């Protein structure tokens, strides 16, 4: 090789490498995200084992203590150990958020497939439905629905389902619009396969990946919504620990015990970070080169 100019050559365009080469653990961001999420999930699952304290029982003789060897993050205004409450709150909110994605995912994917595959008036109707739901700000609709249905876990699931399916429907619909023109679909159709079979066995496996990637960011959104509801007292009723209500409780003590409000928020940020990293990493693997 002849000598290359000393001022160096700039970074290269990314090339598309075959899938076998792009192992997920080779991507630092994705790996970090998975590890982080793993730690978070472990902490949530093992929560009760990681701390001897009860998150609910009040201990009015020990209120508002600072961090110490006994209480890693101190105690809150009702004498409960903050660290324990963080773990339990994480546990609850995470569980609800993960479960809350399932229904919108299923409904959205089904409706989106039908809409994209059949087109025509079915498509028009479903899309108008989407437009109507989208016309309302996400938080507004969720809060209004929870208000109407009464606070509590059940309402949260219902509200999120009613509002959240639209994004999945849109994504799947546009993927299917493109995919259904592919040759393998034509082949399946000329083979006399029923529409349902084509959609379920042939189209969906190819397009569902985009919905899964979106699902990552949707979980983050749901966590934020749950935490927001908790902050306004519309979420899981106290005394069950919930990161949102913890932030609310703690804000009055901001000047003296900032950790009461800050830490729950940080936990949410970390969860969001890990999920976003995973979502981005997956997106990179499946469609490389898109920022």
């Amino acid at each position, binding site marked *: 090789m002849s000598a*290359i*100019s000393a001022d160096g*050559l700039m*970074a290269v*365009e990314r090339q598309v490498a075959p899938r076998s080469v792009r192992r997920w653990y080779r991507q630092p961001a994705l790996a970090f995200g998975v590890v982080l999420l793993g730690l978070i999930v472990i902490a949530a699952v093992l929560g009760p084992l990681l701390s001897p304290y009860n998150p609910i029982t009040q201990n009015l003789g020990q209120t508002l203590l600072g961090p110490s060897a006994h209480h890693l993050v101190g105690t809150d205004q009702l004498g409960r150990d903050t660290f324990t409450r963080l773990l339990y709150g994480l546990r609850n909110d995470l569980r609800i958020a993960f479960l809350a994605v399932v229904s919108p995912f299923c409904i959205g994917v089904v409706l989106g497939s039908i809409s994209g595959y059949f087109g025509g008036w079915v498509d028009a109707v479903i899309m108008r439905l989407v437009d109507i739901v989208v016309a309302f700000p996400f938080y507004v609709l969720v809060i209004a629905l929870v208000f109407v249905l009464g606070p509590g876990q059940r309402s949260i699931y219902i509200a999120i389902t009613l509002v959240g399916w639209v994004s999945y429907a849109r994504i799947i619909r546009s993927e299917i619009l493109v995919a259904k023109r592919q040759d393998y679909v034509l082949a399946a159709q000329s083979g006399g396969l029923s529409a349902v079979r084509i959609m379920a066995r042939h189209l969906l496996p190819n397009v569902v990946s985009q919905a899964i990637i979106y699902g990552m960011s949707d979980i983050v959104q749901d966590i934020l919504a749950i935490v927001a509801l908790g902050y306004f007292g519309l979420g899981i009723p106290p005394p069950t620990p919930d990161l949102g209500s913890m932030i609310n409780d703690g804000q009055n003590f901001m000047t003296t015990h900032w950790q009461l409000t800050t830490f729950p928020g940080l936990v949410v940020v970390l969860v969001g970070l890990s999920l976003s990293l995973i979502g981005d990493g997956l997106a990179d693997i499946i469609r490389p080169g898109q920022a």
Partner: protein
Amino acid sequence: MTIGDAGALSGAGTGGTVLEVRDLRVRIAARHGTVRAVDGVSLEVARGEAVGLVGESGSGKSMTLRAILGVLPPEAKVTSGQILLDGVDLVPLSNSDLNRIRGPKISMIFQEPMSALNPVMRVGYQIAEGPRVHLGYSKAQAAERALELMRRVGIPDPERRFRAYPHEFSGGMRQRVMIAIALSCEPEIILCDEPTTALDVTIQDQILRLLASLCRESGVSLIFVTHDLPVVAQLCQRVAVMYGGELVERGHVHDVLLDPRHPYTLGLVRSAPDVEYVRESLVPIPGSPPSLVSPPSGCRFHPRCAFVEQDCRVQPTPLRELPGGRYTACLHYERCEEALADRIRP
């Protein structure tokens, strides 16, 4: 248009060298290695002269042009050589210095006018931009100049077309707009990167005539890159042939195309349809273009050459001067003469 009319349209150069490229080398950083896109290219363009640069895709001809103007893609760098415009070396100049000469001294026309024009900016403003930036024209003056240029390149109804957007024009018209932009600051030399390749034949002819008349009337020099030999024949006085990043032959159009002195040029000429010569069949060049990351040793063309000999595989092949102002890189160029002798039949 036949080869016989070579260079008739644009007239001869009027003396003085506008651009001289000396031993230019461009490297591109790629994942699989360093691509030697341009590997020691030298050429000269005289005032008012049209020089053709031919070769297949990937031969390095576009890279050469972009290197001259300093608009290489970020992964590519000029690693050695000089580019002398009116005696000033462009290689070490900074981007802001280069900006001062781009437009007034040297400009470029691109292959795909649809993607080469800003889609959200009115055509008239795009033409007027050069004079505003470089010649200090006011908005009104620049607009006047743009209209004048539009008339000169043959765009009908310029007053109305001034405010139009690129997507409202046809391909040939867009190319005329590009030419107008290139002319706007009266450069000394225009680099043309396959401007007619994307156009159909009748439009192509119009554009070539336009370029030729500009060359003749204003004394603008041209470097015309193309893979299409008849086009070179129509427009240029001299031609340089590139292969695998290197120059393999150089000389006057008549000589190079009618009487090639390099097997690659011979192959190109043979594979171009031409009704003048009776031939049994079109003869394509066998094999495929060389890797620019690890090119063949010795002469880069040797794996595909019908006349290959032992020394071709090992000896370096710089351009050597032949009598009559011709240059060739082939060690055994006489074989081309012999092959041609068989070729001409009544």
